[in-house]
């Protein structure tokens, strides 16, 4: 598939975060989204995943047939989408059935992330890094061409960062796309970098009052 973003602008709570963002991504390519805290990296990923309406501009995907873009992507972000009272295996089985297009079994995916022993443990008992690895295992249980990773290395130890880099490499070798908001180059050395500038100080008094009305 091919992801094309043109002239994208983002507005949150009445404040313009960024505007005029354009890029396109073909099979096997990776994009590293960098920028300071609050520059809009997570907002960009949320927009790509279809959970936030762009203020202006378009997001298109080519070569995905009848499916729409949210059905072709995986999201792993700060909110890991895991239920604390379900076991790791149950969480992954649910994701597999919900997202469709199954690939690896939950057991195999957990093994690939180096967590075969937690399959039957409720996720609530796991550490932050282990939870993140269970969330990353979701990338393996269903096959989807676009991976949106929001600071995927947060809370990961060095060994797991290596595993993640290897996974991203293999995914891209198979023609997949990776968009990662990250401060580390791990595994995406040859990827392009999209630097989102500092927040534009465009908060006019009118926009600010609009934001207050909403609150």
């Amino acid at each position, binding site marked *: 598939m091919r992801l094309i973003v043109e002239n994208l602008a983002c507005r949150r709570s009445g404040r313009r975060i960024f505007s005029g963002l354009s890029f396109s991504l073909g099979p096997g390519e990776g994009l590293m989204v960098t920028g300071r805290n609050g520059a809009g990296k997570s907002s960009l990923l949320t927009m790509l995943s279809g959970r936030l309406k762009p203020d202006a501009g378009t997001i298109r995907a080519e070569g995905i047939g009848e499916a729409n873009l949210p059905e072709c992507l995986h999201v792993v972000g*700060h909110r890991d989408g895991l239920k*604390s009272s379900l076991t790791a295996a149950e969480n992954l089985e*649910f994701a597999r059935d919900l997202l469709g297009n199954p690939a690896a079994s939950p057991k195999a995916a957990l093994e690939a992330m180096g967590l075969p022993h937690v399959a039957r443990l409720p996720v609530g008992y796991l550490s932050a890094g282990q939870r993140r690895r269970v969330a990353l295992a979701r990338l393996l249980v269903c096959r989807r061409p676009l991976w949106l990773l929001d600071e995927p290395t947060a809370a990961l130890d060095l060994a797991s960062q290596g595993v993640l880099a290897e996974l991203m490499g293999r995914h891209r070798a198979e023609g997949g796309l990776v968009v990662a908001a990250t401060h580390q180059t791990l595994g995406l050395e040859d990827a392009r970098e999209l630097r989102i500038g500092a927040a534009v100080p465009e908060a006019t008094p009118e926009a600010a009052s609009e934001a207050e009305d909403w609150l």
Partner: protein
Amino acid sequence: MIRAFSALLARDLKLAARVGGSGALSLVFFLMIVVLVPFALGPDMNLLSRIGPAILWLSAVLATLIGLDRLFQSDEEDGSLDLMTGAAVPLELVVLAKVLASWLTTGLPLALASPLFGLLVALSPKAMGATALTLALGTPALAFIGAVGAALTATIRRGGLILAIIVLPLMVPTLIFGVSAAEAALGGTVPFTTPLTVLAALSLIAAVVGTLAAAAALRWSE
């Protein structure tokens, strides 16, 4: 599509049964209110059996609100909703599966347990049966109306109170026809089936409108 739907349904039923789920809570709350009323009114059996169906229905409406604020909020907070947006099924089906699961864990047990609780308000066997039937037909409407409010308040912290204020007025028609159907069964000028069919119609309308409205609210939560 059926696979995703049943996966959602099974997950929500499992979550309700695990620690922290609100599975049996609303039933206990229902029991509490029904128990409190005779204490407040005194031991007047005739009065109790006359207002019994109304008490059961009012308790059912209030019990529906228990745990309703977590219906979508818990999934919004931990990111499961992001997962569901990208599911292989439309968001409407996601809503339908979640509301169905919530009805199976709150509304249906409530209707099944109502004959037992009817004993506390001195209902005749006939009134018990009629109330249970109206609750079984009417609680889906309460669940779907509640889902709209839950979807609207999914991103608001401590949205439980706002939720109650939004949905309680919308539940009034269901309450009116539920109670009047239960009372029509005990005699009166209106035949039993007239308010009962209206109640069933209300449930069907709520199922369609509620599903679409809740999905729309979730889709553009920002």
